[in-house]
């Protein structure tokens, strides 16, 4: 009876990558029909690898897989798809210049007269499935233009359209806002009720507790066992994952802000769809403090960060760092002002994925004297610098020469954070700094950010994780509809509920109250 219910059995799976990294060691993993099964574990524990093996993207070095009781060899994603397995990857696998509908039907496009793509039909297929599974999308929009939340849905639809009964979601909530996450959860539960089996990878304990039935914990390539979610406590989970107790509370002394490092005044920006994304945004960040920006994603935070680093040009307004205007300045000049950025989109703006860890961490500083000897690089210094950063930031890698794209998702983020935090910035802009990072490393990065600010740097923190902004920031602004709607000088007494009201636009402070964040 129990056997019949197991849709997937992976037995004794081991995986050694060509570069010698053993990502999975003798892992056993089973899925019951109709369950939501979590996989948890630190960055690089081997979660994505195990699921890539199930989806046929990687071949196991040894081990056996049974689907519906039958032994199978899954040697390609095609094979996995034909077995009813679908996967939504940690990093989106979409073609940006194609439309949503085209992405959904890619590889199985409907045709008319046998030759031409029947685009209308493609849109129909997309819409039909979107309604059936209650995943709202815009089939005619190009993927470059849609928000992450919708991209996530497109990915899920891609799998469902192909008849997936087993859905693997690799950190689906890492890029989602609280609202989008709860929407996704509703959708997942309804899928579960329709008999779908779901694998859910996440670093967020609360989410796991909330939505999953069972969980498998991985550490260092091995499985640490399977547990009923209801019968295991959060503390126990994190102990099994990390091997020690993790304190997620940030301990910080009171901020002693001094002069202004970042001065933003009256920023305005209207996007291509004529939507006002920034509406007279003014604030200042002072040395020695962390100013948080809270808000539901899509309320101008992303645009704001882009303006600060000249990734986009505002329609009006000024940005000064240390007294120098940043608008229209090349990024190296901005960096020369002591500004550094942990971007939200690490794959596009954070790293060069085919370059090595070493090349990535020195990419902002290779011009410095200490890394050069005459016309040549001083390789010894460069090696030393990268080795130090790899150790300090606990980047799990075989060597400094490893290509960044071969790292696990969380470790890629650590590469970015290591470079940006170690450059001794006078102003750090941290956009979702702990996204996709395990609890142990999150603790470490948060402490680093606090330390940076206490040593006199200004920090602007943007995070979709409400707990993180409240805990980490000294003071906080809330953005709604491209405007700053609230300023809290002190985050000690803040709670989720008050914040929620401001974030959803139900409440806003007076202009005078908000203007205090300019400190003039």
């Amino acid at each position, binding site marked *: 009876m129990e056997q019949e219910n197991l849709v997937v059995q992976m037995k004794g799976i081991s995986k050694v990558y060509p570069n010698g990294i053993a990502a999975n060691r003798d892992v056993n993993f089973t899925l019951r029909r109709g369950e939501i099964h979590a996989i948890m574990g630190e960055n690089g524990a081997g979660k994505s690898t195990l699921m890539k093996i199930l989806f046929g993207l990687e071949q196991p070095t040894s081990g056996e897989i049974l689907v519906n009781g039958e032994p199978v060899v899954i040697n390609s994603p095609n094979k996995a798809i034909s077995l009813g397995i679908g996967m939504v990857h940690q990093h989106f696998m979409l073609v940006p210049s194609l439309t949503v509908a085209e992405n959904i039907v890619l590889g199985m496009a409907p*045709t008319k007269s046998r030759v031409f793509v029947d685009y209308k039909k493609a849109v129909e297929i997309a819409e039909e499935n979107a309604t059936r599974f209650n995943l709202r999308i815009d089939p005619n929009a190009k993927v470059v233009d849609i928000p992450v939340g919708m991209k996530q849905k497109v990915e899920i639809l891609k799998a469902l359209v*192909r008849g997936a009964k087993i859905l693997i979601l690799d950190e689906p909530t890492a890029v989602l806002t609280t609202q989008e996450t709860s929407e996704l959860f509703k959708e997942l539960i309804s899928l579960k009720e329709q008999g779908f089996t779901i694998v859910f990878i996440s670093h967020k304990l609360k989410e796991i507790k909330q939505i999953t039935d069972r969980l498998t914990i991985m550490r260092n390539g091995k499985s640490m066992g399977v547990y009923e979610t209801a019968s295991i406590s959060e503390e126990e989970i994190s102990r099994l994952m990390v091997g020690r107790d993790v304190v997620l509370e940030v301990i910080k002394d009171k901020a002693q802000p001094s002069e202004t490092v970042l001065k933003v005044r009256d920023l305005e920006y209207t996007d291509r769809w004529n939507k006002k994304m920034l509406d007279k945004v003014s604030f200042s960040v002072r040395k020695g403090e962390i100013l948080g920006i809270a808000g539901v994603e899509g309320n101008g935070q*992303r645009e704001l960060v882009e303006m600060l680093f000249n*990734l986009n040009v505002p329609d009006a307004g000024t940005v000064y760092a240390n007294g120098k205007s940043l608008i229209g300045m090349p990024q190296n000049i901005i960096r020369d002002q002591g500004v550094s950025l942990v971007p939200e989109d690490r794959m596009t703006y954070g790293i060069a994925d085919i370059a090595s860890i070493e090349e990535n961490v020195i990419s902002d500083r290779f011009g410095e004297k200490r890394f050069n000897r005459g016309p040549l690089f001083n390789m010894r210094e460069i090696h030393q610098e990268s080795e130090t950063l790899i150790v300090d930031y606990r980047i799990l890698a075989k060597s400094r020469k490893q290509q960044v794209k071969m790292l696990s998702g969380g470790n890629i983020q650590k590469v970015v954070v290591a470079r940006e935090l170690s450059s001794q910035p006078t102003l750090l802009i941290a956009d979702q700094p702990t996204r996709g990072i395990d609890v142990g490393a999150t603790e470490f990065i948060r402490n680093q950010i606090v330390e940076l600010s206490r040593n006199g740097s200004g920090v602007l923190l943007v995070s979709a994780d409400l707990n993180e902004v409240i805990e980490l920031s000294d003071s906080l602004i809330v953005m709604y509809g491209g405007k700053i709607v609230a300023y809290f000088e002190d985050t000690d007494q803040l709670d989720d509920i008050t914040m929620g009201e401001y974030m959803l636009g139900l409440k806003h402070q007076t202009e005078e109250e908000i203007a205090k964040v300019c400190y003039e």
Partner: protein
Amino acid sequence: MTNDLLLLIFNADFLFSLIRITAPILFAALGAVIAEKAGVVNIGLEGIMMISALFGVMFAYWTQLWWVGVLGALVVGVLLALMIGFFAFELKTNIILAGIAVNMLGAGGTIFLLSMLTGMKGNTGALVTRELLIPTINIPLIKSIPVLGQVLSGHAVLTYLAFLFVWLMWVLLYKTPLGLNIRAVGENPDAATSIGVSVQKIQYIAIALSGAMAGLGGAFMSMYYSQGWNSGMVAGRGFIALAATAMGRGEPVGTMLSSLLFGLAQALRTKVSGIQGVSSYLVSVIPYLVTIIGLVAYAISIKNKLKKRSPASKGA
């Protein structure tokens, strides 16, 4: 005076030769377009043109049928391109090196092959009779329109085909499932893999089509343009095609326009060097000058395009 000069240059004859000169560049450029869309760099176009040009003549001579020659050139082009693909995809050689190898084969190997097959040195001279050349067509109605008829009618079959292929290529890329797959593979191979589209298969198809185009370009050169094969015949057209594709942003129509521009430069050179009292050294600079002007225009337009597009939308 200047008026006379302009008239001397831009007459019907000149426009006719512009189209004729553009055709082989266009063939090769379309080959570059399809490869690039699939994320493959086919730098071996020049060599493929050389080799298939020779085989075109040989097949036509052996069978005494011009169209067998053209087909033969096409098949040889496909085989050579597949060979580049095999080296790059299967044996994991750098695709640029594989392309360069084919180019060297085209430069040296052809002379050797010719002498082996026929004992001739450097050109096919007497093999090509009038009947073996690609025939020209007079278009019934258009023929009798003054000027226009002189410009558009009377071209070789393959010339018309080259321009027809611009449209066909566009249809293939933007209207068919294969085109959808090609664009997906070129833009994000991981996305294609993740839904079970074989990147390798698509890239093989794309490079084969690219070889077919270059093969036709080769046939055009030896079986019409130079009326016989000789070792200096392709003269960099395979590389000019790569430039034209870059300038045309890898789109079929844009690439046609930039191919016409390169064709114009060559046609001008030929024309002007015939005029008395013009320094032939100065004249030979024209094609390069046009290339530089074209590339500058291209760079400016790209820059403007970037400015308009907000980087915000690039997020993953």
